[in-house]
């Protein structure tokens, strides 16, 4: 099959650091190719080069046999390359139609031809099974729907290559299935798809071929049928992972958190469970089950309509995150970097933020000495080299930033730590580090609520497992628990079609 897009010997550096080295591969028409690798392996750099956001230092791009140079994203789009990111970059106040045709509106004698555009948008939407009035402003759409708008956008420019950058992490299982169907449709129509994902099971299912990047180089390229997931992991990481889930047996103490009949209308209803000291309580369920909403209500971000919370024996009504923190709760939100760090502040200040009240000296002054001492202690625990004290966290690498966020909550020494997808988007090497730290915390007596959509992780790390579906608790199990049981509770079926597992 004639290749649609080829990359030849691509090199790229960012300052002194080489981000890509001699990367070459080609993508054929109608192929679905997976691109996997750890964070920092170079996947997003490849995407940026393909979409014209940055230029390679060496090497070239060939599209349909012609060498192209993309000086800006527009050039790449005109060459037929389009990308869809996890959170689509759309114009919220504008209609679906306008978003689809952004930058290339249909004109009739110099003026915009609205009705034509709406018609065309409708037909594109029909192909993607998106039956919404194209005049709807995009802010009314869900993430999955917005992704479809992005795809419609790509189709409207006749894209030959569609890059999907981590699209599924924010979708519910049903939406993932819908997206999968669309990918297959596009493939049948000859569109090439470059699929980037951390979810190796999906990569395995969706793709014809897999390319593995590690440290900026292509280390493997094989037809999907010829690889196994453990092989992929090994290629990505470059070494054997001895134990991915380092859970130590737990010594459970007293009940530290008891929740009875907790309700937030429209989000979750009648949720009850108990959490003991040193326990890791997993929360499984499909995306949209209400787990994050539950966490946010416990932490005082969202209100509570009914129910009772008993924290360490006392009745607890969270009024605000500040209040929750002062009562011994801590919350690691899913979007760690956006919600976790203040980029204009230094590492010590970020790390100690939840406990500033505890590090005061006279007159409410924040004691620099105590802040620094605490920071040093914590940095050791998370294996972060603090370096110069006045360094802003915005200057740190992504992985180090995540460590600062984790250190921050270690500092708070909470009674209850709520983790929302703690290893989401983290590469395999760092994942083990973080799970180890979580295990340590449980050993130290912290009660941990562990929300995760990765079944394996949740099943192996937790002592007990709460399964939620559509805002209700559908099961509480002792771990280790059978995955089929969990699935049944998560999806609401009494019996599951048995397939070869």
């Amino acid at each position, binding site marked *: 099959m004639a290749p649609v897009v080829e990359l030849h010997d691509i090199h790229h550096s960012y300052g002194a650091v080489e981000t890509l080295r001699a990367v070459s591969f080609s993508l054929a028409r109608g192929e679905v190719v997976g691109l996997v690798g750890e964070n920092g392996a170079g996947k997003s750099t490849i995407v940026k080069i393909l979409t014209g956001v940055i230029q390679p230092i060496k090497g070239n791009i060939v599209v349909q046999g012609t060498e192209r140079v993309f000086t800006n994203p527009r050039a790449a789009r005109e060459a037929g390359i389009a990308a869809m990111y996890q959170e689509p970059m759309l114009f919220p106040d504008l209609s679906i139609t306008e978003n689809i045709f952004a930058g290339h509106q249909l004109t009739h004698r110099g003026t915009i031809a609205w009705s034509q555009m709406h018609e065309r948008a409708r037909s594109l939407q029909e192909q993607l099974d998106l039956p919404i009035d194209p005049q709807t402003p995009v802010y009314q759409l869900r993430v999955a729907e917005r992704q479809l708008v992005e795809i419609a956008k790509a189709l409207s420019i006749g894209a030959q290559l569609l890059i999907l950058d981590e699209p599924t992490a924010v979708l519910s299982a049903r939406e993932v299935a819908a997206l999968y169907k669309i990918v297959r449709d596009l493939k049948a129509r000859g569109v090439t798809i470059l699929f980037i994902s951390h979810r190796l099971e999906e990569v395995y299912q969706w793709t014809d071929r897999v390319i593995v990047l590690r440290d900026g180089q292509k280390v493997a390229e094989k037809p999907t049928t010829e690889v196994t997931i453990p092989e992929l992991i090994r290629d990505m990481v470059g070494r054997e992972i001895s134990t991915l889930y380092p859970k130590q047996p737990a010594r459970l103490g007293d009940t530290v958190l008891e929740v009875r009949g907790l309700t937030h209308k429209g989000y979750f209803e009648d949720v009850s469970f108990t959490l003991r000291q040193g326990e890791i309580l997993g929360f499984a369920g499909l995306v949209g089950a209400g787990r994050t909403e539950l966490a946010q209500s416990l932490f005082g971000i969202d209100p509570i309509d009914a129910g009772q919370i008993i924290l360490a024996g006392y009745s607890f009504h969270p009024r*605000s995150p500040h209040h929750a923190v002062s009562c011994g709760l801590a919350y690691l939100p899913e979007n760690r970097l956006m919600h976790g760090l203040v980029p204009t502040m230094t590492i010590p200040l970020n790390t100690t933020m939840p406990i500033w009240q505890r590090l005061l000296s006279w007159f409410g002054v924040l004691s620099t000495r105590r802040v620094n001492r605490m920071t040093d202690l914590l940095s050791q625990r998370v294996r972060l080299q603090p370096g110069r004290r006045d360094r802003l966290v915005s200057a740190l690498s992504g992985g180090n930033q995540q460590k600062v966020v984790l250190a921050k909550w270690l500092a708070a020494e909470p009674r209850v730590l709520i983790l929302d997808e703690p290893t989401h988007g983290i590469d395999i090497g760092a994942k083990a580090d973080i799970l180890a730290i979580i295990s340590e915390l449980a050993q130290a007596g912290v009660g941990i609520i562990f929300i995760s959509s990765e079944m394996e992780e949740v099943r192996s790390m937790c002592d007990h497992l709460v399964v939620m579906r559509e805002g209700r608790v559908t099961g509480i199990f002792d771990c280790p628990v059978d995955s089929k049981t969990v699935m049944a509770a998560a999806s609401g079926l009494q019996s599951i079609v048995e397939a070869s597992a």
Partner: protein
Amino acid sequence: MSTVARRPPGTEPRRSSSRGDAANSWINVALHWITRWEVGLCLLIVIVIAGSAAASSNFLTPFNLETMALNATVLGFLALGVAPVIMTGDIDLSIASTLALCGVVMAVLWQHGMNIWVAAGLAIILGGILGLVNGLVVVMFELPSLAVTLGSMSTYTGIAFLILQGKAIINFPASLVQLGSGGLFGSDFPIASAILLICAAILAFVIHRTAFGKSVFAIGGNRQAARFSGVPVARTRILVFVIAGAFAALAAIFYLGNFDTAQANMAADQLLPAITAVILGGVSAYGGSGTIQGVVLALVLLQVLETGLGVAGLSGQEQTISVGILLIIAISGGAAIGAVRNRFRRREHRSSIALSATSETEEVSQTASINVDEDHSTHEQGYKSVP
């Protein structure tokens, strides 16, 4: 931890040799200090004073210095009060109106027989309340502070006019006038300036040393993250508006003492200079950085500049124009300096902005859209100084 996988040696990501790093850090430290905003301000102050003194022998006389100091008082209180608001990423356009309303109320109360100092005390409380209203509406209803304070600016001025209409109240008690224009212990140094400096010192202490102050910067830097980290965001944001209101009331007291006249539109033209002083002082318009010391220096600079220009023969309006131009130059210059600093900084640290896969697209756009009020799409790094 034996079970944690580690990178075998030799598989670290490539980077160039670090021999140049040591030399780079010296340059960096030097550059960091020279380009500190406050240093630049001091330099400018010295230049302007030197220039003005050379142009006129009257410039450095005690009388002139005293006049300059007094002139700066009202503006000083306004600027100091609004600085923390801007540091949290909000803005308060109603400070001049708050001054007017508090001054009017104070004058009217006194006119009806109340002791002037009791009236002054009540004025400060009123200022705090007016600020509280601003804060509550902005925070509780989650509305942009620009719009809310634009509205309250009108509202408070309107109320001031409703109370006093076009009239004026004059001839305030000697004690007040003494406070506003008298010298300290009989010397030439104005009491007003002394009190201003004391308040500045206290405010600087609170903003830069206490946890409350750090909260202010945290909220300005990333409000969501601060909230999720247990910082009392709502409370702090409301408090800074209260502070702005109280300081505006203080400004009103000194206004009455200095000018001995109360009118409904007093100090209406001080809003812009106050914000100018804050921005000129190095406080980022987006929040999250800046110093009180910088604001004080900017106040000094503005005052000597205006007086110096007056000495040079420029009229009052021309001075205002020059101040506007100065503001523009200052911000552009600050952005330029920031760009230079960034160029040096990038070489030292391994920048990972290119490396992380998905989080960084959110990161960049999120830092840009965190503080909801103004247009942050051109969020610039180097213009700030670390608090």
